């Protein structure tokens, strides 16, 4: 069924978009990742303008992080104070991100910037995951556990001013650290339409020294707010949030994630990780090919808004 997207000003096949988001939802259900970093490139492959893809994907992330955070919240695995300090940085980051986005769009480099950043991001994650799999096969995950236990916050981080107590995480650190991490997340949400969990989660563990139990919930909690800020800013500054597309993405994501959770039982940790890494690397490869292979037409046109 063709459905007209009022903001993207084009008709798309609703089933295709639904299947796409269900597939990404399935992956996120199986592997416990956000999946925003896959949906945006997929939407761009389908011919939806990058600006609309990014902004709409941000709104989809509000829904998926909301659903994810509620589960963690119920189990008490959210450090709300820490989350709110991160959100303060995240809000600033999403505003800065919007201006970067607007500037790149004005310069005509937004497509390139999005492709380029996704290549680095997906390539980096994919390679790291493959390497980690090999390492953990050799060391039988000892390395990972050791890294968690031995994580010591660096003295440079401890020397920063504006120290704050975070009773839930049992930390006494500078508020600049969580705010800074949130800031990066906010920029990523605005420019790439991703929650940035893959970057924020390790940062919270290794830089901030948060207890791993609280990390996932707190990260999801702050992602709700940064992606919400990014959505509102995109709607306000660029008029690129397509609610019709967003609702299909949300619906597909929810349905896919449920199947994913069921399927997760049949996937063993190692196989799952390598499978996801291969999917991520193929998307990355497609982006690389698109960027480096000579386009059929060197020219493109766009309305001036």
């Amino acid at each position, binding site marked *: 069924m063709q459905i007209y997207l009022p903001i993207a000003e084009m008709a798309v096949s609703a089933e295709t978009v639904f299947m796409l988001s269900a597939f990404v939802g399935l992956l996120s259900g199986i592997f416990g990742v956000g999946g925003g970093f896959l949906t945006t490139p997929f939407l761009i492959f389908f011919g939806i303008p990058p600006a609309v893809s990014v902004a709409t994907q941000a709104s989809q992330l509000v829904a998926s992080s*909301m659903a994810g955070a509620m589960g963690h919240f119920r189990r008490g695995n959210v450090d709300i104070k820490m989350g709110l300090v991160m959100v303060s940085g995240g809000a600033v980051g999403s505003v800065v991100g919007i201006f970067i986005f607007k500037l790149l769009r004005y310069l*005509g480099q937004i497509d390139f910037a999005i492709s380029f950043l996704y290549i680095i991001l997906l390539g980096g994650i994919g390679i790291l995951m493959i390497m980690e799999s090999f390492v953990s096969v050799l060391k039988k995950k000892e390395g990972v556990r050791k890294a968690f236990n031995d994580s010591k916050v660096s003295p440079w981080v401890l020397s920063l001013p504006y120290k704050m107590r975070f009773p839930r995480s049992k930390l006494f650190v500078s508020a600049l650290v969580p705010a800074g991490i949130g800031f990066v997340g906010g920029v990523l949400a605005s420019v790439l339409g991703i929650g940035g969990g893959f970057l924020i989660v390790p940062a919270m563990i290794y830089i901030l020294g948060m207890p791993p139990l609280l990390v996932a919930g707190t990260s999801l909690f702050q992602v709700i707010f940064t992606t*919400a800020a990014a959505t509102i800013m995109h709607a306000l500054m660029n008029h690129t949030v397509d*609610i019709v597309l967003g609702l299909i993405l*949300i619906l597909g994501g*929810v349905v896919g994630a449920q199947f994913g959770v069921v399927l997760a039982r049949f996937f063993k940790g190692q196989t799952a990780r390598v499978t996801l890494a291969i999917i991520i690397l193929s998307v990355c490869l497609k982006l690389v090919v698109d960027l480096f292979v000579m386009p059929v037409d060197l020219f493109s*046109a*766009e*309305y001036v808004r």
Partner: protein
Amino acid sequence: MTCCRRFLNSFSAIAFFFVLGVYVVSAFSEIAAAEPLQFDIADDYVEITTGFTGTTLSMIGYRKGRGDIVLTLEGPPRSTVVRQKSQVFGAWVNRETLQFDNIPSYYDFALSVDDEKKLMSDELLKEYHVGLNALRVVPKEKRIDEDKIKLFQSALLRYKQQHQLYSQKAGAVEFLGDDFFRVDFHLPAHVPAGNYTVRALLVGKGKVVYEDAQSLRVGLTGFSSDIYEFSRNHAFLYGALCVLIACFAGWLSNFIVRRS
């Protein structure tokens, strides 16, 4: 006597209708004489609804006497920037740009002959916007190299054609009889919204004998239109509403999962 009156009555009735008939016919022929070309659009409002997948715009017309017919369909003017990619460290990146102001966002035309060049001079084609080469595509900035302008102009036309926004070639004016004609324009799903102009020309001996124009509106309606308008006029509220809907959807999905 009564018989006679009845005869007179029916006679006057017949006479009345006869006179009326003559009058109507002559009135019509008078209009026809004044307007050698008439046409009408089947739908003067194209509605883009949520299920819109493009449509066919039909026009029926009538010409009096000899002459060729030209119909042009022009979309609302929009400023468009054309970008050229070149290689930077092996990657293809947008480098050169040229902006064209107020070019038709959509263009299609139909002829009763196979080539517009057979109809009139290039100047007249330009004046009446007949054919792709007759469109006014002028760069915003002045003092730009002629070659660059030509290159970007042709790239723009090519881009528009590839995206089905400019016609590949002239459509046909289909004659239903000697003088009645019909033209079909196919609008794609992503046809730009706005006010369109349909212009009909009657051409004879290299001159435009008669010209008529009608306007046509392509617009979002219903749900699509409401969303579009709301997102433009109340951008912040729209964004906030999107977030609220997403939050509700997230909560709902969590709720359903917990129940099952």
